[in-house]
């Protein structure tokens, strides 16, 4: 409960901080528009050469694109800024300030930053998702909606865990310049249903970097092709990943000796 209170407090301060820079909203609107138009153009191009991609129609893939944009926006808003800050602070030695506070270090490390303007991407993703859904004829029941929500939250948790593992790596490897680019590159695999990738890559973007759980599984839920075993697997894997990540973070912390102080 205390963790939740602290998170909300940081969220409030972070949002207030960002609200000072209102022109950034215009810039972000422009950037999101570019992302959106590019995504739609690529889809249009692909479907000008085929009617379906690995069993996915254009409208269904539109839903998937929406979810990918939404998820990428959420990650850029809340996950990536915090994790980048951890990586930077390990190098500069300022992580000590967070560690000496009387609150769980993982909670603190995960909630201190918020780039609120990326919320535009979340909305633009929702918009694409809604548009795609409106063109799909199969009925979208309350059970599908529920499965979608659960899958989306689990996917977000798993991506957070992945990032935290990477950030924890900074305790050993200080030179992490290109990690954000590496992640962006891998996350782009989420633009397409994971089924089109060859086996080795499909396994990698499912379990190594949980992009499939974050994008394809929620998309399967909204297009009524999700099997309950998949959702169950997502629950189990998210639980496992969360526990393992927490252990790894603490293991890294024990090794960390502070660079400043």
């Amino acid at each position, binding site marked *: 409960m205390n963790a939740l209170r602290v998170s909300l407090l940081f969220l409030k301060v972070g949002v207030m901080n960002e609200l000072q820079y209102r022109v950034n909203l215009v*810039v972000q609107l*422009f950037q999101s528009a570019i992302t959106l*138009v590019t995504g739609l153009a690529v889809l249009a*191009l692909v479907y000008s*050469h085929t009617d379906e991609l690995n069993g996915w129609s254009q409208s269904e893939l539109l839903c998937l694109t929406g979810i990918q944009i939404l998820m990428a926006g959420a990650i850029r808003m809340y996950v990536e800024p915090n994790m980048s800050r951890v990586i930077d602070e390990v190098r500069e030695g300022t992580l000590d300030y967070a560690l000496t506070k009387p609150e769980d270090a993982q909670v603190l490390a995960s909630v201190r930053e918020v780039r609120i303007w990326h919320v535009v991407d979340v909305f633009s993703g929702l918009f694409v998702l809604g548009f795609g859904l409106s063109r799909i004829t199969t009925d979208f029941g309350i059970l599908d909606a529920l499965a979608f929500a659960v899958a989306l939250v689990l996917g977000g948790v798993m991506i957070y865990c992945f990032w935290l593992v990477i950030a924890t790596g900074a305790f050993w490897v200080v030179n992490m310049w*290109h990690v954000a680019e590496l992640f962006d590159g891998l996350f*782009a695999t989420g633009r*397409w249903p994971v089924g089109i990738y060859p086996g080795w890559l499909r396994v990698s973007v499912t379990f190594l970097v949980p992009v499939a759980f974050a994008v394809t599984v929620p998309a399967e839920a909204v297009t009524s092709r999700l099997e309950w075993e998949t959702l169950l697997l997502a629950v189990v894997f998210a639980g496992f990943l969360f526990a393992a990540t927490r252990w790894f973070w603490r293991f890294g912390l024990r090794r960390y000796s502070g660079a400043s102080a």
Partner: protein
Amino acid sequence: MSAGPQYARLPEAGRFRSIVDFYLTTMRTSVQQQFQYRVATYFYMFGMVAEPVIYLVVWTTIAEQRGGSIQGLSAGYFAAYYIVWTLVRNMNIVYGAPYWEHRIREGRFSGDLLRPLHPIHNDIAYFAGSKVVWILLWLPIAFALTLVFDPLLDPTALEMGVFAVAIWGAYLIRTMFMSALGMLCFWTTRGAAVFNLYMTSELLLSGRLVPLPLMPDWVESIARFLPFQWAFFFPIESLVGDLSARELLGGLVVQAFWILIGLGIFTLAWRSAIKRFSAVGG
């Protein structure tokens, strides 16, 4: 006589030799640095390989659904296209527009101006040196991709020769245009949106996303009047495709043309940009 700040000039006597020496030394330094941080470099290259692999998988899937090819382009062609893509993309990485922002904001630019040489020489030489290392590091990646994706690649000696020149042409075209774009940073600190727009246009019009013949005809006609494809599609196609000797050599001429255009735009922009510069830190 110029008004405002200007970089100092080398003495006229022995100027050419000094520049050659500068290029060689900077390239050598850069080669050593890249080798020193080879793990970081490999991380970067791995992140980059994801993009062409995604495109490759998508188009191969479609080609297979349509019985093996799209508009005459087979899965083997796509594999070759996107594997060569990774090298061309490596060559295409330059001191981008965002770097100008960084260099001005951090106050490094004042120091650069003190050198008796236009800063662009440093940019060109430094990355040219890095490319040598990147090409070496790229070879194992290309080998692995070749094993996995089975490309259809059968270049002639002329094609290989033109390719070897064209990747450096691509490097210079992109250096010129990105540097020209970077001049925006002298006027605004919010250039990111404009850079993004440029990158998106490039993505769609250069052959980076997909071989240009797969684009709708009207897009192809627009692309014909822009520099983008000469830094992406042409170098790749020179090795992978079936261009005639005339098209191959003509392509190099067009590349030279765009390098000069880019240099012209950059020079003009530089002249007015440098007048606006006032030092930050340093």
